[in-house]
């Protein structure tokens, strides 16, 4: 039976061509070069296609990410045969698969959203339909519809991988492709639709007056709690979910949920655990902004507006994703030598430091070369776009091209695969309850809480000392 790409990512052995950190650095340089070239071609407001309006660029960026998740995680490279995956040259594979992802991407946005949904369903998916409204200019029509479509993408980019990572493809894990792929696709798409309608549709409704024309609930139910009517409140936690799904999948190796023996208990715990962790991030990052910039004032604009603050939570979250993926893709999930919890903690610390450094560097310098604008809250400053664009390039590189040229792909032998499974099992077995573990856990919780309050206490002074953007 043809397995297509099922298990392909676990069952390939990536062999460094050089020792030490050189492959990682070489890959970083190459991917950054490709990033900058493609950024100039597609996104840069001074470049060729100038999609960074910013929403149009963001929409394509976000959906492209999902296309790749669909192809690799949900459809396991179907319809490409395993043999081809293992033998074709990485450049050829990259070119073919990337082209396919782009074709589906355009078909989905132009055909499904703008064509079908926009013309026969919800007017705001299609800029031409939007423009028929009084007072909507062409520019805003395009921006609004891009916003609506990308909101859908934001939700899908959390739910699609979450079904694989948390629900472990259940209940269709036994099906062969493409039946499995279509099942998961339809399920996640349906869930995305539901979440979209209860989180984002009211936001789109608010853009128009009177709101009731668009039969959305207005003002929306989250207004009092979130201090804003904007859907950015949801963008924020959904972005956090997207990031946490990948953290759980990559640097955390699904720890601690993998300790749970019962299948369904583990799956539900993981799925809702991801949401729980995301909400914690969501609230903390909002609090961090309040601590450094002062309380949000509803009704003001930009940096002090709650809606922008929520958006910025999502923007900050995305800065965690980049170093986490780098650690997994190019550093082979370093470190691996301690017990799983300690490994996870160390990687998390590294990711955290990387995220903060990236944040500072990005805001200090990005406007000099990306064509974005200086300032945190400038409408033309959308860090999610370049970050996700870079992540997209890495996914192409890591999933489609086996980290070529710094690594070489060798399929693992049956023994190696077996050994891998055993090691994984052992690592999980290694973490088990004991009195000392309990003591450690209690001490750790206390330390975590203390660390939290120290952070909260020190943050304003530390932020003031760094002064990322003078004058802000």
């Amino acid at each position, binding site marked *: 039976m043809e397995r297509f790409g099922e298990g392909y990512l676990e069952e390939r052995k990536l062999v460094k061509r050089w020792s030490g950190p050189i492959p990682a650095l070489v890959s970083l340089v190459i991917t950054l070069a490709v990033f900058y070239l493609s950024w100039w071609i597609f996104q840069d407001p001074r470049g060729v296609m100038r999609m960074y309006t910013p929403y149009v660029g963001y929409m394509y960026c976000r959906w492209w990410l999902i296309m790749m998740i669909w192809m690799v995680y949900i459809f396991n490279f179907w319809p490409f045969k395993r043999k081809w995956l293992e033998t074709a040259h990485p450049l050829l594979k990259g070119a073919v698969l990337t082209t396919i992802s782009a074709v589906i991407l355009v078909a989905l946005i132009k055909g499904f959203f703008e064509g079908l949904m926009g013309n026969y369903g919800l007017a705001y998916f299609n800029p031409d339909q939007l423009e028929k409204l009084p007072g909507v200019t062409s520019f805003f029509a395009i921006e609004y519809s891009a916003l609506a479509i990308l909101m859908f993408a934001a939700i899908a980019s959390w739910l699609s991988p979450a079904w694989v990572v948390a629900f472990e493809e259940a209940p269709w894990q036994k099906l062969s492709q493409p039946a499995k792929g279509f099942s998961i696709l339809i399920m996640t798409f349906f869930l995305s639709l539901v979440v979209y309608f209860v989180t984002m549709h009211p936001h789109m409704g608010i853009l128009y*007056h009177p709101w009731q024309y668009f039969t959305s609930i207005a003002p929306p139910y989250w207004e009092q709690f979130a201090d804003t009517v904007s859907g950015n409140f949801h963008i924020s936690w959904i972005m956090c979910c997207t990031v946490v799904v990948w953290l759980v999948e990559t640097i955390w190796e699904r720890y601690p949920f993998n300790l749970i023996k019962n299948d369904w208990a583990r799956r539900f715990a993981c799925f809702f655990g991801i949401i729980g962790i995301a909400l914690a991030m969501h609230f903390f990052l909002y609090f961090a902004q309040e601590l450094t910039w002062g309380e949000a004032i509803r009704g003001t604009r930009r940096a002090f507006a709650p809606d922008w603050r929520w958006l910025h939570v999502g923007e900050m979250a995305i800065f965690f994703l980049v170093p986490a993926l780098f650690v997994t893709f190019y550093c082979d999930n370093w470190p691996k030598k*301690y017990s799983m*919890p300690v490994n996870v903690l160390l990687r998390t610390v590294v990711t955290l430091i990387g995220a903060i450094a990236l944040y500072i560097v990005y805001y200090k310098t990005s406007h000099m070369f990306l064509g974005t604008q200086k300032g945190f809250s400038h409408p033309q400053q959308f860090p999610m776009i370049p970050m996700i664009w870079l992540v997209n390039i890495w996914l192409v590189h890591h999933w489609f091209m086996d980290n070529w040229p710094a690594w070489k792909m060798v399929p693992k032998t049956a023994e190696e695969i077996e050994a891998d499974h055993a090691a994984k099992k052992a690592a999980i077995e290694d973490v088990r309850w004991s009195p000392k573990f309990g*003591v450690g856990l209690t001490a750790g919780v206390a330390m975590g809480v203390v660390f939290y309050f120290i952070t909260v206490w020190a943050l304003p002074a530390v932020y003031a000392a760094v002064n990322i953007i003078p004058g802000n």
Partner: protein
Amino acid sequence: MSDNINRRDFLKGAATGVGVGLLGAMGLYSYSPMRKSHFTQAERKMTDIGVCKSVKVTNISETSWFENGVLMGDIKGAGGLLVNQYDYNWPPFGNGKGLGKGSYEEGIAQIKHLLPNRLEEAWKIIEGNSVHPENAGGYAALVEVEQMDGKKTKYLLDVGWSYKWCDEAFKREGIDKMLENKEIEALFFSHEHFDHFWGLPVALKYDPEITIYIPEGFYPEGLQYIKDCGHKGKLITVKNGLNKVIPGMASYVFAIPIICRVYGEQSLYFNVADKGLVSVTGCCHQGIIRFAETAYNEIKYENDKCYGIYGGLHISPFDDWDPKYDDLVISLGDYGFERIGCNHCTGVLCAKKFIAAGYPVVEGTAKNRSKDKAYLGNGDTITFG
């Protein structure tokens, strides 16, 4: 060996625990009301003015004059907007010499002996001596503050202009009886302008002992007029800045030059329990944005929310280096008012734009010579809280 295992177990537990503790604290504490204790309010004074239960405003009159064209003609004819308001020869200070040739002394000499009790006779003389007496209207409002214990206190904000029109309006709303029964605690003047201030005898006719609050910056004629109208009560000059009145009510004086040689404006702030800040203004010459920002920087109010506004929202005349008058409409939305009752010098067009922008404008009934339903017109009321 077992020590080693123990240590490893402890580390595993601790590593897990740090994550659990940190994430738990992040999730539970970061967005809880407890977080508020971390915010420094260095920039905001947050002066506590107390709270009140509700504020009810009755619009006694918002029609300062009935024909814009007539008033503009008078102002132009007399020499423009910088002319001293006492020199126009408008009622009640007519001296019979014609437009722009008036003076306070000559005008008041004609009627001083009739103030404040014989206003019909006074108005007859005024009609004979003044320019366009029929065009005069006035701005006046009754503010009723309900304390948390249910006690109600009444204040007047301004007293209008024309004796005749204001007396009618006072009687229509029953203000005359309230004054006679000493129900009204005090009279606040927003500024010295003719349409807010010159109807003073009408109030003093019914209650000459009423306490009067004026903003700093009154001219000698204005101060003299208060005496000449037969005021026997306390006169309090409010210095620039915040001045507490009763729990939940304060006034704020802005030092700004206004047309017709007037200086300084006093506006009222109320802190309504569970709702937020309510502002009552005469003309708001300082501009609604500065007004709201001042409240934000100076006062502590419920829910940290600007809840309502009543009065004239002067379309700022200094806002024209970018002639987008819509700016004001948009930025007013920034303050999230939940109830807006606007009239007087707001501009009907502006009020209509507020409505078009979806702001919660409380519409009026357009009766008693108020021109448009977009305005909270003469005789209409609005309640906050």
